[in-house]
């Protein structure tokens, strides 16, 4: 359709909405925000008749490229180090995508603005597109990559894995609780507007550098839908900003959503980009550099800060604190180290780092070797089964971390860890903000005002609790992370495709697994105080094993 006729068509379809009179419309999803009818326009002005053919055309390009990659045997040049992390990433991401689709009715119900509803409908089906296009990409990886184990159990593993769970909260954050908090601030204003560039633009460029041309094809096509979604989010945000009494809630939600997105997305994508790549050219961007460009400059300075003209205070301190965690507190590196420590609970392989990697890290993150070099040397030394246990159960000096109750990422910035008695139990948090999120934000009252629409943090939030006191062999069997020979493990701390170098159930039998949360709650007050003090001091990696 020609653009001019789309504009006219878009105007015409506004005639479709009406105000019900036989029933008093009872929104199925609620918000504590005050919103008044109408207001914002939908700047994208799409109609179904322009949308479907346009998207179909995009699809043709994607599927043409997939055929090309298969025929051209892309996997001859794909880096296993990179592909292994896709077992995690692509197990997670289809759920947040489909959750974004499921989130749309929160706003179509709660937001009294039919013009925006139309934009939300496109977003809904876009997100169905994203979810299934990504599932299909993963299916191609499973069929064509040298080691399909881990792809073959993908959605099961996503559901029962600690890292899958961390990713899952990202999607669940879109769909439950206050409609504006979840769908607008968390999903549209923060996740989509701030973080999809790192997810869907930075990831593809790293994929391509590792010989994977398919991920860029799929994800850049996905990203091309995002401007519509950001636009939906902006219109809704302006509707919320129209009322002074919402400012408190917007500020609450921006703090929660910003911090939670940072904790989850930067942990995962940072690790993929810095530790999942074999491209060690010194002039290629590190995750920190990408973050500075996409998140700090493009999002924070160009989008978030200008919102202050509406009298809002945006979370400057938390943006700076996120940067501080990434740049000064080694957030991504701590995460990668934890992922590798926890390889025994993964469903993907983690390639040891080499001297070339060390050099790159030291160049990009000065001081890296002193902090992480030794540990990664130990990891490399312990990567093939040779009479020792998985690295987590050997004495490297590393202290297995407790988990943050809120973001569920381990409390890796040891000095920032918060311990508090909340809802009848001792909980640990990675940061003040995560503590506040649980204790203050997700409650039925905020700053003295009732917030009856606000969601709750639920579930068995510490993964380790499920397996406290179990034998590691039984943990593997329960998770289903055993290959189809009935004994070789799905995860391996290396990328050797050779049975003689692969870990099996025999290597993990007899190791008892423990949950920090259970232990902390069993301690006497005195023991707990001591534990907390020690934990905050951190650890030193032993020079020799």
């Amino acid at each position: 359709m020609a653009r001019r006729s789309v504009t006219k068509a878009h105007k015409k379809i506004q005639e479709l909405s009406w105000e019900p009179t036989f029933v008093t419309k009872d929104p199925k999803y609620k918000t504590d925000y005050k919103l008044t009818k109408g207001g914002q326009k939908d700047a994208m002005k799409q109609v179904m008749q322009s949308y479907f053919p346009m998207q179909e055309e995009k699809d043709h390009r994607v599927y043409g490229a997939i055929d090309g990659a298969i025929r051209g045997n892309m996997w001859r040049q794909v880096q296993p180090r990179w592909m292994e992390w896709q077992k995690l990433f692509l197990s997670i991401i289809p759920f947040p995508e489909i959750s974004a689709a499921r989130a749309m009715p929160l706003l179509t119900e709660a937001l009294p603005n039919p013009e925006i509803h139309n934009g939300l409908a496109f977003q809904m089906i876009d997100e169905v597109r994203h979810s299934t296009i990504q599932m299909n990409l993963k299916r191609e990886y499973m069929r064509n990559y040298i080691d399909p184990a881990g792809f073959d159990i993908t959605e099961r593993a996503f559901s029962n894995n600690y890292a899958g769970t961390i990713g899952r909260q990202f999607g669940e954050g879109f769909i439950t609780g206050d409609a504006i908090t979840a769908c607008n601030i968390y999903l549209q204003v923060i996740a989509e507007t701030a973080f999809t560039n790192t997810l869907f633009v930075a990831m593809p460029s790293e994929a391509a550098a590792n010989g994977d041309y398919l991920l860029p094809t799929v994800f850049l096509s996905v990203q091309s839908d995002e401007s519509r979604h950001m636009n939906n989010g902006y219109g809704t945000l302006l509707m919320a900003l129209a009322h002074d009494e919402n400012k408190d809630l917007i500020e609450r939600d921006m703090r929660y959503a910003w911090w939670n997105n940072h904790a989850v997305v930067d942990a995962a994508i940072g690790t993929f980009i810095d530790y999942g790549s074999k491209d060690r050219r010194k002039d290629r961007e590190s995750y920190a550099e990408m973050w500075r460009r996409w998140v700090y400059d493009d999002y924070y300075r160009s989008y978030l800060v200008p919102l202050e003209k509406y009298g809002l205070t945006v979370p400057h301190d938390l943006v700076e604190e996120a940067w501080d965690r990434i740049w000064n507190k080694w957030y991504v590196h701590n995460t990668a180290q934890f992922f590798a420590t926890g390889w025994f609970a993964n469903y993907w392989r983690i390639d040891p780092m080499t001297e070339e990697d060390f050099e790159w890290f030291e160049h990009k993150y000065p001081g890296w070797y002193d902090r992480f070099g030794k540990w990664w040397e130990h990891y490399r030394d312990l990567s093939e089964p040779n009479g020792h246990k998985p690295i987590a159960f050997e004495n490297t000096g590393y202290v297995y971390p407790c988990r943050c109750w809120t973001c569920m990422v381990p409390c890796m910035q040891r000095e920032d860890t918060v311990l508090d008695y909340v809802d009848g139990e001792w909980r640990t948090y990675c940061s003040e903000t995560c503590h506040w999120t649980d204790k203050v934000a997700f409650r039925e009252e905020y700053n003295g005002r009732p917030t009856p629409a606000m969601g709750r943090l639920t579930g068995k939030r510490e993964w380790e609790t499920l397996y406290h006191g179990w034998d590691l062999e039984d943990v593997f069997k329960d998770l289903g992370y055993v290959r189809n020979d009935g004994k070789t493990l799905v995860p391996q701390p290396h990328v050797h495709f050779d049975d003689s170098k692969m870990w099996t159930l025999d290597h993990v039998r007899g190791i008892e697994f423990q949950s920090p949360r259970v232990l902390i709650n069993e301690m006497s007050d005195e023991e707990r105080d001591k534990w907390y003090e020690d934990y905050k001091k951190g650890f030193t990696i032993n020079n020799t094993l």
Partner: protein
Amino acid sequence: MSELRPVTEAGGRGERSIPKIILTDAEAGAAKFAGSDSRSYNYFEPKGRRATKYEDVTVDVQPDPKRWLSQSWLYGWPNGDLGYDPRWTRMQTTNWHRFRDPNEEWERTIYINNANSVRQIQNSIENAKSENVFQDWNKSWLPILAKHLSAWAHADHGLGMYVFMPAQRAGMTNMHNNAISVNCMHKLRTAQDIMLYNLELTELFPGEFDGEVHQEVWLNDPAWQGVRENVERLMNATDWVQLCFASNIVFEPLVGELFRSGFIMRFAPAHNDFLTPSVIGVSEREFNDRDLTYTVEMMKDFLGDETHGEANKEVMEEWLAEWVPYSIAAARGLEPIWSEPEIQPVSFEQSFERARNRFEAILSDLGLRVPEEVTL
């Protein structure tokens, strides 16, 4: 992987930095080791002998604490409901994950099918324009299209945006919710198809076609108030299975098909309008071939459950008792419009009789009976 040899060296043009291409030999079959042959998703039971692509990209994407979701839902509702709560419908089942969308809709099919529908309508209109068929139209037919065909777009819009849209948040599996979300788009697209057709006719018949009268008709014409009431009541209902049932098993056959097939598609040719049936026929076929098909399959899955089938049947019959009267009233309310066109090839009773038979055939396929107190 110990010897990774670059086959291209970067730097042919001096300053530019490009990643090296390295042959890794990481393709399927390059080595044999434990698990190297495990090349299908192994965590669900395919419906047929082998999993279809639809199943691969759909099943278990929405997890379930009763299946693999060991830490359960991480966000809950203030009233204590889970992120996805089985109590959001009165249907019960021993296995939510049995249902498969018989249309096997996933991203490719959604865009191919809907783009085809869009093209089909646009081509029909373009052909009609280039053959200038409009001069043969009986002009008395124009107000019928302006008022009634266009009023119907509101019903589609209401169902799409405020019935199926929220329903696709609530289902217990991705199979249910994706099928419902596709249904949602069919309705919204059809509503817009009708509006854009209205726009065409407004331009083709300047001064003769009232493009905006449909709003008044939908809100105030007594013939349409039953339809509007039915749609508005659906908009306020919450049980997601009930929404699909009351919309696609009850309302669409009794009212939607009655209007589309029993009125528009029968009356238009009599007024030399052969275009409108092909425009509205797209949505008629979509309902019959796709939306009704998945809904019937979904209901049969609940009805066939070895433990809860009987109880589910009782609930569905309660739903019939609740919704059939609204849809009958909506249908009967439309009766006056059968006498509006200049030429009347069929009476309301004849059209309604067909709709009723069709409805009863769907019910008998499902093994359901309309409660006795309800008069069809």
